[in-house]
């Protein structure tokens, strides 16, 4: 009986994922030395989000998981975004 239903990801596809992640790391480091003001932080965070999305979808194979699990994971990030937003609103108006 096949209890394991996990999708097999080929070696090649995994090494391609790594190359993309390394490239994005390189971009993060080189952008830090350029003076973009407040933009620098936004760009760094945006790249970090893209990187974590790639890790979640490919390395943690969420891409091939059930819809239920994918929604659950998305909800955790929505929850965190809400916590951040509410805390910042609190700080901005006190």
């Amino acid at each position, binding site marked *: 009986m096949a*209890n394991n239903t*996990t999708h097999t*990801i080929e070696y090649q596809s995994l090494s391609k994922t790594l190359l993309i992640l390394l490239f994005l790391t390189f971009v993060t480091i080189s952008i830090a030395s350029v003076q973009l003001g407040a933009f620098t932080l936004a760009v760094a965070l945006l790249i970090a989000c893209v*990187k974590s999305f790639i890790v979640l979808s490919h390395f943690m194979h969420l891409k091939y998981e059930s819809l239920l699990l994918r929604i659950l994971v998305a909800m955790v990030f929505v929850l965190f975004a809400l916590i*951040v937003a509410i805390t910042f609103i609190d700080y901005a108006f006190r």
Partner: protein
Amino acid sequence: MSQHTAHIEEHRDDEASKLGMWLFIFTELLLFGGLFLVYSIFRMQYPVEFRECSLELSVTIGAINTVVLLFSSMTVAMSMTAIQKNDMKKALLYIGVTLFCAAIFLVNKYFEWSGKFHHGLYPGSELMTHLDRGHHLYFSLYFFMTGLHALHIIIGMTLLFVCYFKVRKNTIHSQDYVLLENSALYWHLVDLIWIFLFPLMYLIS
């Protein structure tokens, strides 16, 4: 009595144990998420101090550790592929490489931290207590967050060590590898946290 075939019901639900692992990962994400929130509030209040302190960290060591962790994340994913393809030798090799990368990460961390300790900079030290608020907060968060992350590295290594021996003993194999899968998920989580820690701690401009 002929043709008596024993039917053994195996109580196993890999989907459920994976879901359980994910639920645990959610709590970990929120734990670190809370710390990142504390970090961002104080960084907004003390932007100059945070910038000054981050210059004390070596971007080179941070970058090397980032590459090492990303690479180890790939090798642990490859060990899963190998197990699924019933290639035990490769699975052992990839778990071994992952453990080696984890050790490199910790050695780098050791040199980084001991450098700070030599300058008298550690939680509760005389120098720390005499720093002004902004600097004090940065280094407290630095030690706490990277320290908690390093603790997760050690836990991840322990899990992967167990997997290594179970693959060798053939208790993890191509039909039953959920322990390796969950340990790999944990290892990716460690990588995920570092993806945010590195730019936020080391690269402040």
